């Protein structure tokens, strides 16, 4: 059984790299929801800030996705 270490690295890269952003997106959305529940008048501001925060967190996941694709194509 031969192990292609590049492919293994590709799987590990995206697998481990998506843990952090996944947790952080959940925390961001949860905090935004709490804020909207406390003060529904600020919903628009909270929603905009939440979208910006989620995009920053997703960017980290996509960096690891790029590394994974680079390793997979070796």
């Amino acid at each position, binding site marked *: 059984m031969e192990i292609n270490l590049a492919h293994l690295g590709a799987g590990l890269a995206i697998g481990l790299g998506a843990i952090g952003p996944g947790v952080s997106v959940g925390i961001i959305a949860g905090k935004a929801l709490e804020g909207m529940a406390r003060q529904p008048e600020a919903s628009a501001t909270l929603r*905009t800030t939440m*979208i*910006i925060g989620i*995009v920053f967190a*997703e*960017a980290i996941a*996509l*960096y690891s*996705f*790029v590394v994974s*694709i680079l390793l*997979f*194509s070796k």
Partner: protein
Amino acid sequence: MAAEQVAGAEQSSEAGAVMSHILEEFSLSNEYAFKFFGIPLPHGPSMHLFGLDFSINKAVVVVWLATFITIGLVWYTGRGGGLVARGRLRNFIEAMVQFVKVDIVEANIGTHEGKKWLPFIGALFFLILFSNLLGLIPGSNSPTSNINMTATLAIIVFLTFVGAGMVKQGPFAYMKNLAPHGMPGWLYVILYPLEIFSQLAKPLSLALRLFANLLAGHILILSLLALIIMSGSIIVAPIPFAFSIIMYAFEIFVAFIQAYIFAVLSAIYIGAAIHPEH
């Protein structure tokens, strides 16, 4: 047994062909953009200038189309004149330009200087938006799913905000204002390289975020549909198909969000360069 092994090998070679077709989109060359649904398009005259490939392929044509839509829509909307907008198209375009002006430019650059920067940020927003959306048409690809285009846009934004900061404050004052004042002297030795590195990381993250988001969307939809081919049977076809339709709707949402995020971050960087907070 032998027949199953042969069939398995045939399936795995098909899977390999499908995966190499998907991965072709990720390579830095533009060879994938010469195919329309797998049919090779005519190459045209090979235009190489200084070792770079300037030949006209599908991505180039889609960028031209996005540019014409951007310029044409906004020019056509604004040529009538008159204070009150009439008609659905004009109201729609005016609503989007109003959104860019109030929520993106003036919230980050300020009302006084915002008027000068609205054309740049608005053009950036609409170009990226239409480039993203045109990639969702089957058979075409989005030019922003290519690292070359997003890196170009990010370098333009980088030169713009560094240039605007240097013009506004003077070159040395801009470099000095990167780090906060009032720190003990030895801290500046660590702080300045860190600040310069974070300035360089800004266009890198802009380019990589836009490129990776759109590329991930394309690869996801292609991989889901390739599952049908790789499984070899047609019975399982509805499940990946339904899921890929859901991901398709999500891709439209991502197209809008990524254009908005690029424009907002450009406005934030320009605002931070023009008005340095202490």
